């Protein structure tokens, strides 16, 4: 293999060896070194992880000075309640405090790519998404600078006509559900959201929904 020389010329000069040492080119068998080299290479290739872990930034609402809930039109406030088994309940506007089944406007969805909570958010956030799409097109055609783009995008996302998503969790919700929901906010370019606990009435309404629709 990596045998470089040493063969071939070995036989011919045996007779003269005593008289004078013929100068052989100093050649070493490199096979073991190469083997070791490749072994190390394989080891490092296998163990190296290039990607550092990624993070989602989270700034929960302050405990001491809880921010005032914004006054919102019903069509701009989407409440999402995360529950066990990756279930996602949601409703628009303010919840009715009575427990009359007919007034229950809570609906059920999930995290699937089609027809899940993402589509619901997109449907209600068309105001922001249309404007951002137009802005993206301008940016892609190099009509506006990067900084202008970032500023305008921030303005649109923070606009008072933008959808406000209130993300709530019940006691059975899992951490991955919350991360998924924060992800959906990122994917749907929704920047206005808050993360809080579900209220008693909402838990009751969810139970009522489950009874009405035979959800387990």
């Amino acid at each position, binding site marked *: *293999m*990596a*045998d*470089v020389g040493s063969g071939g010329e070995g036989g011919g000069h045996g007779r003269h060896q005593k008289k004078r040492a013929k100068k052989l080119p100093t050649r070493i068998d*490199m096979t073991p*070194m*190469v083997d070791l*080299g*490749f072994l*190390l*290479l394989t080891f*490092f*290739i296998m*163990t*190296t*992880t290039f*990607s*550092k*872990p*990624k*993070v*989602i*930034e*989270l*700034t*929960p609402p*302050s*405990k001491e000075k809880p921010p005032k809930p914004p006054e919102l039109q019903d069509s701009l406030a989407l409440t999402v309640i*995360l529950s066990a088994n990756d279930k996602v309940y949601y409703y628009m506007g303010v919840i009715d405090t009575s427990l009359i089944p007919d007034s229950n406007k809570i609906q059920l969805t999930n995290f699937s*790519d089609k027809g899940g909570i993402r589509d619901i958010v997109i449907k209600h956030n068309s105001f922001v998404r249309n404007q951002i799409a137009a802005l993206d097109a301008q940016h892609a055609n190099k009509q506006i600078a990067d900084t202008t783009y970032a500023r305008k995008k921030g303005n649109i996302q923070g606009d008072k006509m933008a959808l406000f998503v209130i993300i709530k*969790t019940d*006691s*059975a*919700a*899992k*951490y*991955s*559900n*919350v*991360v*998924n929901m*924060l*992800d959906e906010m*990122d*994917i749907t370019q929704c920047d206005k959201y808050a993360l809080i*606990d579900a209220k008693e009435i909402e838990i009751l309404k969810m139970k009522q929904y489950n009874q009405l629709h035979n959800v387990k």
Partner: protein
Amino acid sequence: MPKIKLPRSSPSIDMTPMVDLAFLLVTFFILTTKFRPDEAVKVTIPFSVSSTKLPENVTTIDIDSNGRVFIDMDVKEVRAQIFQSMADKYKSVAPGIGGNEVARFAVCGPFGAPMAKMKEYLDDDDDARKDFNKASPGIPHDTTKPGGNELADWIHYAYANVIQDYNQKVSSGLKGIEQPRFAIKADGRTKYKDIKTVVDICQKQNIQHFELITSLKAKPQ
């Protein structure tokens, strides 16, 4: 037609360039590899589309699927200071913690032992610590259970010391030091209320900003 005679010799190739390349690659990998640090608990982090990188200088709070809490800090000197403060405060439940334990704590990696068992944990060797971590209830943070809220004190001293360390480094003119942050590395299956309990404790200690550690997944179109 005469036959073309192929010379009968063993085909020997000059392998020098290949070997050179192999060793170049080995060198590259040796220099770039950063081994994954020891994990005290097995945590399967959830996926997200966020592409923000984990900053340097973080204090990580690990929460496993059963809600057990472990803490990890980077800076050695700070670790020693934090542990000294904790040892002073918990003198009554954790007697006999001395310089030896403090020195061991500074390099022990993520930990999740209640203060009462800390001395035992630190005096153990690596294998015993692994077994300990498997059975450990984590850092106590439930005020209704015995052990009280040690997590709050850990966070309190950690916050005070990392901020002090950061300010010192900045004022002494060191460049490129990132602001200290708190990261939460939790298992996807953990109940969110367990995470919330930890977040609430941190908020009471004046930490208002968290990094949730996730691994990258592709963004849907």
